């Protein structure tokens, strides 16, 4: 019942033993230019805070020339760092009147990026260990994967989504309802109070259902503005889980703010 060996989809970084002759490392084993730079720095056992730019640039460019395929996007990223290396070297060649303080070191910008990237890489190896353990444990929230790729992504709801939903619904009403709509004054303040009370009672409101229940266009419009106002003033939240699903509205769990509107 021993766990099966884990899939080795991580491209292993070549060990320094191969570093002598005929050293063949393809560029695509590296996540990116920073990964390659870190590899070169470690291979040469260089202190990351004191990089001999000329030597590293030479190594780095050597790798770029050995590329086996052309991928413009990837290439641009590698070339960008090459340009940065050359720029730093040129800055270091410029004569200065006084010695550079540490923070004026032209290499600073590169060192900071490398140090941060190195940390992310190290964190990755720790997170990978966690993933390897967790992936073997089945939890109750597990839902069997659907066949075929899911195209759905979490949706951000904009004012326009809300408005569109509203007008769609009004159109539906128009088709179904042939009564003459008589004007009736519906003050926003009154409707707002009504709405907040309803939200408190029902906790969650179905956006479309709520409007279906309105007698007149005017009243529905006022309600719609009330919802917009509540969302805008962050008293209520409007959420649509997935495309074409209904929009649900509820009050934020922030009694202070809610109270201010009652």
């Amino acid at each position, binding site marked *: 019942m021993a*766990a099966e060996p884990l899939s080795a989809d991580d491209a292993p970084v070549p060990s320094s033993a191969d570093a002598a002759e005929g050293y063949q490392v393809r560029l695509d084993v590296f996540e990116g230019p920073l990964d390659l730079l870190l590899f070169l720095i470690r291979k040469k056992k260089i202190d990351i805070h004191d990089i001999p730019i000329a030597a590293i640039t030479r190594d780095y460019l050597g790798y770029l020339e050995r590329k086996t395929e052309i991928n413009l996007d990837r290439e641009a990223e590698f070339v960008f760092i090459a340009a940065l290396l050359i720029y730093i070297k040129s800055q270091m060649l410029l004569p200065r009147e006084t010695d550079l303080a540490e923070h004026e070191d032209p290499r600073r910008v590169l060192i900071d990026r490398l140090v941060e990237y190195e940390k992310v890489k190290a964190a990755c190896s720790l997170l990978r260990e966690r993933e390897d353990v967790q992936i073997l444990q089945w939890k109750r929230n597990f839902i069997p994967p659907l066949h075929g790729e899911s195209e759905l992504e979490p949706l951000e709801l904009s004012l326009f989504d809300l408005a569109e939903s509203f007008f769609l619904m009004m159109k539906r009403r128009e088709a179904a309802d042939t009564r003459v709509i008589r004007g009736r004054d519906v003050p926003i303040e009154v409707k707002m109070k009504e709405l907040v009370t309803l939200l408190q009672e029902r906790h969650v409101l179905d956006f479309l259902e709520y409007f279906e229940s309105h007698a007149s266009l005017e009243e529905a419009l006022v309600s719609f503005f009330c919802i917009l106002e509540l969302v805008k003033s962050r008293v209520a939240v409007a959420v649509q889980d997935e495309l074409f699903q209904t929009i649900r509205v509820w009050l934020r769990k922030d009694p202070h703010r809610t109270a201010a509107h009652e």
Partner: protein
Amino acid sequence: MNDSLKALIESLIFVSQEPVTLDRLGTIAEGVPPAEIQAVLEELIRDYEAEGRGIHIIRAGGGWLFSTKPAHDREVRRLLQIERKNRLSSAGLETLAAIAYRQPVTQSEVSAIRGVDSTGALKTLLEKKLIKIVGRKKAPGNPLVYRTSDEFLLYLGLDSLEGLPSEAEIAKILEEEKAVEAEP
């Protein structure tokens, strides 16, 4: 020890699809002091960790939940008739780590940390629901701002973001890596 309380807590964790917090258990087991719930819970956890049990109670996402033990992965998958769960790609994991540590963060910030365009990796992580969009940054172009999700915590078995590897742990890993490389 209070056996009926233990049984109650066990059933509450069992039915829950999400991690159950101590607070939640407290509101349901009315009148029981939190310390007692905690003690009973710990006993329950010990019971399940014992040999001969296939499931155990793990702490993740701020609460407790049941999961199978790692040893039975293959058989569970055979029952469910599914392939091995794929690990994240290195690009995906790297992107996820950059977001986890630097959140809230934009696509261009993540890309800058990695030195690589991360749009595709972000899309995959969104699909896997490991990250979420939390708004837009008030900066030119109003770029989307990302955070890790609750699923992220469950995915890695973390109780909270505090549980991410610390600076000290990361420094230790780096030192070890350098020590290995320094060997002839």
